[in-house]
């Protein structure tokens, strides 16, 4: 699945989730535990979707990481030369700098993913005004889940739709891993909503 198609799918999922969040948020003013926890799930789901859309393609990533490594080592080795350190210092200082850069890598990559994802997906679409009932919201979230899972499956590739392949992709593939996390949050939100509705039904009967 190409990047652009994935972004279009994620934008659609995001719009559905924003509508659902608006529908739940209207009803959550009463301070219900299940509704509030569904709201938290949906809010963090949006962030995960943005991060999934911001993952850079592998060749670009390789070039960027190589450039950063080159720059860090050249600069720190030049600094070691200016300080007049011996051979050990000239090896130890760039080594330490490189390890520091590697340790800061995930943090910096997360920032880059979020910024790129914001640019690619655009602002959060404002939900259409119209009071949806919670049952409709639950169905809408289920539809969002179908789109999200089908996008993730297409991303994983049609010849990898077996359980071991998917399990591996959920652990190692950067995009599929984030989409799996988003799917998990969506399932939790749907489950919280359903438990709230079930409690309501029990109270009424």
């Amino acid at each position: 699945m190409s990047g652009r198609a994935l972004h279009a799918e994620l934008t659609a999922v995001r719009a559905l989730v924003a509508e659902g969040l608006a529908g739940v948020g209207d009803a959550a003013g009463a301070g219900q535990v299940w509704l509030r926890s569904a709201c938290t799930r949906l809010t963090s789901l949006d962030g995960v979707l943005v991060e999934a859309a911001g993952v850079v393609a592998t060749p670009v990533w390789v070039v960027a990481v190589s450039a950063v490594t080159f720059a860090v080592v050249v600069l720190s080795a030049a600094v070691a030369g200016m300080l007049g350190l011996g051979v050990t210092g000239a090896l130890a200082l760039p080594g330490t700098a490189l390890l520091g850069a590697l340790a800061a890598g995930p943090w910096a990559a997360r920032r880059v993913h979020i910024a790129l994802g914001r640019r690619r997906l655009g602002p959060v679409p404002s939900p259409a005004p119209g009071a949806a009932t919670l049952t409709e919201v639950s169905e809408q979230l289920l539809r969002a889940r179908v789109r999200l899972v089908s996008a993730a499956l297409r991303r994983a590739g049609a010849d990898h739709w077996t359980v071991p392949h998917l399990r591996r992709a959920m652990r190692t593939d950067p995009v599929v891993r984030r989409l799996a996390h988003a799917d998990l949050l969506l399932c939790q939100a749907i489950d919280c909503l359903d438990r709230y509705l079930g409690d309501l039904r029990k109270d009424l009967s």
Partner: protein
Amino acid sequence: MSERVLRRLRARNDPFSGLVVPRLRHIERDLDAVITDAQSRDWSADRPDQVVFARLAQARRRVRAARRFPVAGPADPVAVLLGAVAGGGVAAGLLWAGGAAAVRPVALAVVAVAGLWAALVAVAVLRRLRRRWDRDTPPGRAPIDDPYLYAALRRRIETCAAAARDHRSHRRRGAATELEYALDWIGAAQSELPRR
């Protein structure tokens, strides 16, 4: 006999198991494996069920919150280790071969980039091999359907909660509350299992 030993003895509810207080990190790792497996089965329509793994994931969140240092490890530790060994080995070999000429800044940077690419190539080869291994792996039974899994998880988390409950640090006592929430979620997951 010190208080620590007493607490350990209290936590050991099975005298024949060597395990004293199970580690939250290991509980989280096992939960993670079960959740990933159940979710991939849901995605491939092998065992469609979206509720149970979501509830187990809530339990995992609580267990993670109860940990003292709740940092997630690398997503793929095998690949990280392999890449570090391959990259470090290639860089060290180049430095040793280059001798004194390799200490100049640009040469050193070239060596570092060569090490990086060696690490990336090793990880790519590992990925190809894993695809081949995965093709031959049968999916097997789903661990999420195993009733003993829930019993074992509940027992391990209860042991951790009992050890945390009378700790002298109030942060550890707060972790016991999180673990009780985790037990609630595990009970909720088990109540949704299909009964035969």
